[in-house]
């Protein structure tokens, strides 16, 4: 027992959380006592004796869990063991519940954790649709309803879509570039463990007096600065999710820039790597803005600063400027990695090189640059300076151009290929093109100021974001999970169940989100628990499709869980893909490669006899060596 407490792990983590939490609590009480203040301050925006422990307890958990052990020992001058690999790799399922520095273990931890939050957020969506099935108030009252849609969005955005991409890339990207791991494995593990803490903070706000945060995921001031305690949990949760995101992005940048295998020039990187390079550039520069603005809200709430308090000289609209300066790039943070996944899947299953590879990579960079200049299109009716609208409209419309390049290039990739549609991953990638085109079209309409004035803050917006986030991002996430499932688990999933899941999801997505456009244009505002009678029938239909969409996801869970345990063994390269991760065994060896591969060509050299992307250890080692005719796809070396 004593030994268990000394070792990093769950026991020490829990003790750390309790100890640090108690310290935070005691600090507040002691400081208030010596200041002659009442010990407990329970204004709804106050509760310092809750907020401070909510900061210290998660840090205590991380410290106890072992996230800082190596660094602390090093900083204190104590002996460290640089080549201690005891925290690396997973031998049993128990290793997934430990502080682990293996990018493959961390990747799986990310994907599984984020999918748990996906289903929690999905359950909230079901409650929301149950309430909206009929006009009037039936299931939850208005205040609870506001909490529900706020937490739904926050869970989906901050602890599902953004980190699940980081998880997939965590697993795949080092393999793809021929690296043994990420550049900073311990930072990588710390990034992961901050994530569940963020999710727990978001969800535990339901326990706070006054209920969970209810100012929407956008948390506009001054509604948020005056909201009950739950809002502070949102402010803090975003810090942990944001720190996790920023650290991971730095890790990706350094990994991609410095750890590519010999011969892997920038123009030989698979597009998934390009996509994560672009995403990381967005995250490191944009995410600090939301972290900062949520601290400003927290300070307005708890310390009575006046950033956004108009009565104290604060400026209400500046919240929105700072918030959207992060949150519009965030839209691309949630989409670019998906673009990368779709490129890999389509090229592999069409047996064709990506059409216009360089323009595809440049389009990503174009989106990164443009995305910093469009944020105020969220604010056309917000009362900001009116001359800001037209330039922001033009940049917004222009960002459709690089996005269009990507759509057309994927389509071009299909031409003169050999398209295989047996894989569920390919089905999701193809359906993504269609649904994302619709989401893009409604996005262009929203970018036009006169149309936006009418449909801003209506269900048209709800329809648009779900078309791009569900029909866009989530479809690519499914494509990615199905595509790399054999690599990650070493087993094949069931394609029949995969197809049921795919068609069910496609029908559910269209049925749920298409009619939302119509009720929005016709006058139904968003974020309402109750609405005019005239929208009743459409809403009932939307709810029915939403329940269907929710139910179909259970097929996915069943398929993943059962296939992971009992699925047939997967070979190294079931899709006959070219990139490096498919040239090692499934799952890959603990340190990825016995010998770092040498990259000798582009990543998508399908159809070129003898062309190779990389030469693995044990293969012919002279560059440009003739590969015997008839052996078109490289075989994994195991």
């Amino acid at each position, binding site marked *: 027992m004593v030994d268990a407490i000394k070792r990093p792990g769950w026991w020490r983590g829990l003790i750390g959380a309790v100890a640090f939490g108690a310290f935070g609590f005691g600090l507040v009480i002691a400081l208030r006592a010596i200041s002659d203040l009442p010990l407990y301050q329970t204004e709804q925006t106050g509760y310092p004796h809750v907020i401070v422990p909510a900061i210290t307890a998660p840090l205590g958990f991380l410290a106890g869990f072992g996230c800082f052990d190596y660094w602390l020992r090093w900083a204190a001058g104590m002996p460290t063991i640089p080549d201690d690999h005891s925290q690396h790799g997973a031998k049993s399922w128990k290793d997934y519940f430990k502080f682990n520095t293996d990018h493959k273990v961390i990747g799986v931890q990310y994907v599984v954790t984020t999918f748990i939050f996906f289903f929690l957020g999905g359950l909230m969506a079901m409650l929301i649709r149950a309430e909206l099935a009929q006009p009037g108030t039936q299931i939850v009252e208005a205040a609870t309803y506001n909490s529900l849609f706020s937490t739904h969005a926050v869970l989906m955005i901050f602890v599902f879509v953004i980190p699940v991409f980081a998880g997939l890339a965590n697993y795949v990207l080092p393999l793809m570039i021929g690296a043994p791991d990420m550049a900073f494995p311990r930072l990588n593990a710390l990034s992961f463990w901050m994530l569940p803490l963020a999710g727990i903070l978001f969800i535990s706000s339901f326990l706070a007096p006054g209920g969970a945060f209810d100012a929407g995921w956008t948390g506009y001031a001054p509604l948020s600065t005056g909201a009950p305690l739950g809002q502070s949990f949102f402010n803090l949760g975003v810090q942990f999710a944001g720190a996790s995101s920023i650290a991971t992005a730095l890790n990706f940048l350094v990994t991609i820039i410095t750890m590519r295998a010999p011969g892997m020039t920038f123009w030989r990187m698979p597009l998934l790597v390009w996509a994560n390079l672009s995403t990381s550039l967005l995250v490191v520069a944009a995410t600090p803005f939301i972290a900062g603005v949520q601290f400003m809200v927290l300070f307005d709430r708890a310390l009575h600063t006046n950033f956004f308090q108009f009565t104290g000289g604060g400026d209400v609209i500046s919240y929105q400027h700072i918030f959207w300066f992060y949150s519009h790039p965030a839209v691309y943070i949630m989409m670019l990695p998906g673009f990368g996944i779709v490129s890999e899947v389509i090229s592999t299953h069409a047996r064709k090189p990506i059409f216009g590879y360089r323009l595809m990579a440049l389009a990503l960079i174009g989106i990164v640059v443009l995305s910093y200049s469009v944020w105020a299109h969220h604010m056309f009716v917000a009362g900001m300076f009116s001359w800001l609208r037209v330039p922001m409209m033009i940049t917004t419309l222009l960002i459709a151009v690089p996005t269009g390049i990507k759509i057309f290039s994927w389509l071009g990739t299909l031409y003169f290929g050999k398209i295989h549609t047996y894989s569920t991953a390919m089905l999701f990638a193809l359906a993504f093109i269609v649904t994302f085109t619709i989401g893009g079209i409604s996005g262009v309409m929203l970018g036009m100021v*006169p149309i936006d004035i009418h449909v801003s803050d209506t269900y048209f917006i709800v329809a648009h974001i779900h078309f791009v986030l569900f029909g866009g991002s989530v479809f690519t996430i499914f494509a990615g999970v199905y595509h790399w499932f054999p690599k990650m688990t070493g087993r094949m999933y069931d394609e029949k169940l995969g197809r049921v899941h795919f068609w069910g999801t496609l029908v559910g997505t269209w049925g749920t989100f298409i009619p939302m456009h119509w009720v929005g244009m016709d006058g139904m505002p968003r974020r309402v628990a109750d609405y005019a009678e005239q929208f009743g029938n459409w809403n009932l239909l939307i709810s029915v499709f939403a329940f269907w969409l929710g139910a179909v996801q259970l097929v996915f869970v069943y398929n993943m869980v059962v296939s992971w345990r009992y699925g047939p063994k997967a070979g190294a390269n079931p899709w006959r893909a070219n990139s490096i991760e498919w040239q090692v065994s499934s799952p890959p060896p603990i340190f990825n490669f016995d010998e770092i591969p040498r990259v000798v060509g582009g990543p998508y050299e399908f159809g070129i006899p003898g062309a190779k992307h990389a030469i693995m250890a044990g293969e012919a080692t002279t560059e440009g060596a003739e590969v015997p005719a008839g052996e078109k796809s490289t075989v994994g070396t195991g």
Partner: protein
Amino acid sequence: MYGRLPIVKMLLVTIALTVVISAVMVPINWNGQGASTAAPKIDHLLNVMIVLSAFVFSLVMVMLFYALWKFKAKPGDESDGEPIHGNTRLEIAWTLIPTIIVLFAGGYSWKVLDDIEEKSPNHMTVSVFSQQFAWSFAYPGKDYAWSEGELHVPVDKQIVFKMHALDVIHSFWVPEWRIKKDNVPGITTTATVTPDKVGTYQLVCTELCGFGHSTMRATVVVEPRAKFDKWVEGLDQKTPKPLLEAVEESTTSEPPALDAGGA
């Protein structure tokens, strides 16, 4: 090698599909009834966008489904596709053409925006006050006549709304007018509308403002000038002092015109 593709046929199908989609979608009155001079302009812009979008969508569909039909691998075929890495002319085309389309859309929107916001010298100013979860309105004339929960305006007269929020952000939307503007605490925001149909409409709050957000509504009555004057005459409430003070403390969100010169 693209000579091998039936490009003319594909284009014809795309155009046919565009015509069908447009023929179905354009006649539908998506935004509901219109009751201001801005409404037909915005609705027309929307229809233009529907046709352009129908073309883009049809093009993507035709390209996708033709490829799926023509280039689907036969069962058991394990060979690769042709090693085509791109086509510079095609790539330039699908960069330039969309750029032209969106710039056209942007220019057209700009024009519509200028049109619907053009101020007439002969306008009437009405003040809007919003607070959790109620609307009230002050009319010009002596003593600042004031109404709660019911907004009256004369028909065919340009109204400039000066909006003030007293607690959190609210948003002023009358769907039939196609006009929406946030009311922001601490500043005065402005919206311009010329109602052109007599009738009764609903004013809806579209910015989340708390638990009463979904029920924060007001009635809007558009009526002939004489009736309106009489109604204002009959108002016996004056605008409460705190509201007037809020107006004085507010700054406007409109910056001075760039050519206004130094004071």
